[in-house]
């Protein structure tokens, strides 16, 4: 038998066939193969129940969100015509920021996950949708929908772990440039939409000479098309349309993009990097069963507790655990699913990582600072260990 899965303080332990209470690590939660498959069955049933219930209410929900978003956008653009009334102009920046946040999170991210494909509306189809950011949708679908959601938190495969520039996990090798971790993270936060755009570039592989112009060119064509239009819209056309207020509109639009960047970075980093979230190795996760994939998604994600409005503004990525279990179910269903997922976790003794925004984001920044330094100086954070007994022969 081959034991596996130790969150952060990972122990990959080769063991003799063991009884459940005969664990290599005292205090570790041990899941038998049957447990894991039963968890998989329960989650499949939860998924099927939700799919069967999708209908007119879900349709109304997403169109209501779209109406609010479009309304915010139009109001925000209009307020740019009255920069001589600072409160109005500021409210405009706020409305435009909210519009972009809703567009990117509750609408764009979720639609591009295929959450509304069942409605068969061309405007809400995952293959055709584009969002209000510089990252082309098709590149994002590759780096996020495929790479990140399939290989969630597998060090070396999931490029969301540090986005190729940050060190977020003790199993990432330390290099001196990681001393700049907090600075790089702050820059990534400010320029987040550009960072997301460059995600598929795999910058570290370009630096190391593993990717050449032939790999980059098709991506660059996409950036030019998509980012070019976004820049033209926010930094030329709308400012020009306000005539004498060109500069204040330019600043207002830039501020809205910045607010959206700070917010999306924070919500997204809270999804996988707070204390207690597990990461995995490629060996551990080779030939996973569906049940094992589900368990990895739960152990590798973290939620943020908050109000219904908070959940909407985070695109329900505050329910990152539910999102990773069911990435293609409409996200506004996650709050309903959360208690049932948490119940499954508690019955099997698995951690269900959730906490208020300040606690989660605080622990994310704690990690950003901590992993700027080599493990020898700061040690490895101790987290509860879950061991999955895999089928014989897996080793």
């Amino acid at each position, binding site marked *: 038998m081959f034991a596996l899965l130790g969150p952060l303080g990972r122990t990959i332990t080769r063991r003799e066939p063991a009884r459940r209470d005969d664990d290599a690590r005292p205090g570790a939660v041990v899941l038998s193969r049957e447990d894991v498959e039963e968890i998989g069955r329960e989650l499949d049933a939860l998924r099927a129940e939700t799919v069967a219930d999708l*209908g*007119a*209410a879900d349709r109304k929900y997403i169109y209501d969100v*779209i109406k609010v978003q479009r309304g915010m956008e139009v109001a925000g653009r209009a307020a740019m015509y009255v920069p001589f009334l600072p409160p109005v102009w500021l409210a405009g920046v706020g409305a435009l920021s909210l519009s972009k946040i809703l567009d990117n999170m509750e609408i764009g991210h979720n639609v591009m996950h295929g959450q509304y494909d069942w409605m068969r509306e061309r*405007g809400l189809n*995952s293959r055709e949708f*584009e969002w209000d950011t510089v990252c082309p949708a098709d590149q994002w679908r590759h780096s996020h929908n495929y790479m990140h959601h399939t290989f969630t938190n597998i060090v070396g495969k999931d490029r969301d772990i540090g986005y190729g520039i940050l060190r977020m996990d003790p199993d990432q090798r330390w290099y001196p440039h990681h001393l700049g971790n907090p600075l790089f993270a702050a820059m990534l936060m400010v320029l987040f939409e550009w960072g997301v755009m460059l995600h598929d570039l795999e910058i570290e592989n370009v630096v190391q000479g593993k990717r050449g112009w032939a790999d980059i060119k098709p991506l660059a064509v996409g950036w030019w098309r998509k980012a070019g239009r976004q820049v033209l819209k926010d930094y030329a*056309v709308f400012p020009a349309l306000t005539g004498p207020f060109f500069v204040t509109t330019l600043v207002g639009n830039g501020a809205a993009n910045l607010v959206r960047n700070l917010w999306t970075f924070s919500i997204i980093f809270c999804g996988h990097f707070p204390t207690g979230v597990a990461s995995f190795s490629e060996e551990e996760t080779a030939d996973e069963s569906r049940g094992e994939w589900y368990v990895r998604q739960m152990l590798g994600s973290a939620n943020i507790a908050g109000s219904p409005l908070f959940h909407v503004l985070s695109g329900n990525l505050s329910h990152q655990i539910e999102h990773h279990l069911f990435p*293609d179910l409409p996200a506004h269903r996650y709050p309903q699913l959360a208690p049932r997922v948490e119940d499954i976790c508690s019955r099997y003794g698995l951690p269900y990582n959730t906490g208020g925004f300040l606690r989660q984001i605080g622990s994310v920044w704690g990690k950003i600072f901590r992993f700027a330094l080599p493990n020898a100086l700061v040690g490895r954070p101790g987290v509860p260990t879950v061991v999955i007994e895999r089928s014989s022969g897996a080793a």
Partner: protein
Amino acid sequence: MGQIAAGRPVAPMLGRLVGLFETMATPHGVDRYTELIAPTVTANELRARVTDVHREVADSVTLQLRPTRQWRGFRAGQFVRVGVVVDGVRHTRCFSPCGSEHADDGRLELTVKAHPSGLVSRELLERAEPGLMVDLEQAAGEFHLPRPRPRDIVLISGGSGITPVLAMLRTLVDERHEGRVAFLHYVSRPDDLVHAGELRRLGKALGVTVAVGCTGTPGAGDVDGHFTAEHLAQAAPWVRGAQSYLCGPARMMTAVREVYDGMGIGGNLHTEAFEAAPAAPPADDDVRGTVTFSASGVDAANTGDVLLEQAEAAGLSPEYGCRMGICFSCTAVRRSGCTRNALTGKADAEPDQPIQLCINRPVGDVDIAV
């Protein structure tokens, strides 16, 4: 998305203005904003608003639709695709407009007969009200009256096949067609006859003969029983010199075809089969049929595997990602046929729908645009 519909000449000034609006609306397109003010105000997308609903006989409903300005009209006999939302899901079905090409207000008339298991037709029968918005596509189909019109014309239809030929009849009457026109229509019971008053009115036009047969009710119609050569001789003794247009159920079409071939005038008969309602998914998952990858021109016998694996086994390399139904990289359009989702167990047979190849298995013959 967000492109101006090709082929529509717009004045240069207006074109530049629309171009500016498209830039302002990027990446969503102008329609995604205007539709929130009024669903009929669209720069690119063709839609229609239902303006009148008329329920004449049980199980049928006649709708008047006013299309948005993109509508390019139709030729009598053609069909349109109409998209209707049922329980949150937009379903698309083909209907033949049954009004004249020359309807002076540019409206479109559809008569929909509800099948007991017809999702869209039942929805329209039970719930369509004036104000309902539907998606619309431009008219299509080769079954239509040619220009210039043939001098003598025979129209034959059965059941809901009446709609394209009624459009032809009304168009000819509106055009004050100078040749002879005969219209033979079959229903099973007199109560099933839609547009009865309209048919009586049209039958009084100069040179027009209208005859209705009631196949299930002897003595009730103008002609008795199913279609025969005698019916044709009675309604259109001049049929040899005429062009004929036929739309109806398969059995009736075969009977008419035989009569025409027997008379040696099969070349003058133009037909349109009923647009078959999507087949109900088979109860079992027999591994059978042929999988057609139509974009590559490859056919393969159905092995029962998911479509992604069948495509790869056939030597194709469609785009894919997770291979477990989460990333939507392998989505492709199922042109026709039925597939079953391996995760939900749900079968679906609606044509031209995008599906995930990695979690869908073909049930019988399936055509995938890969």
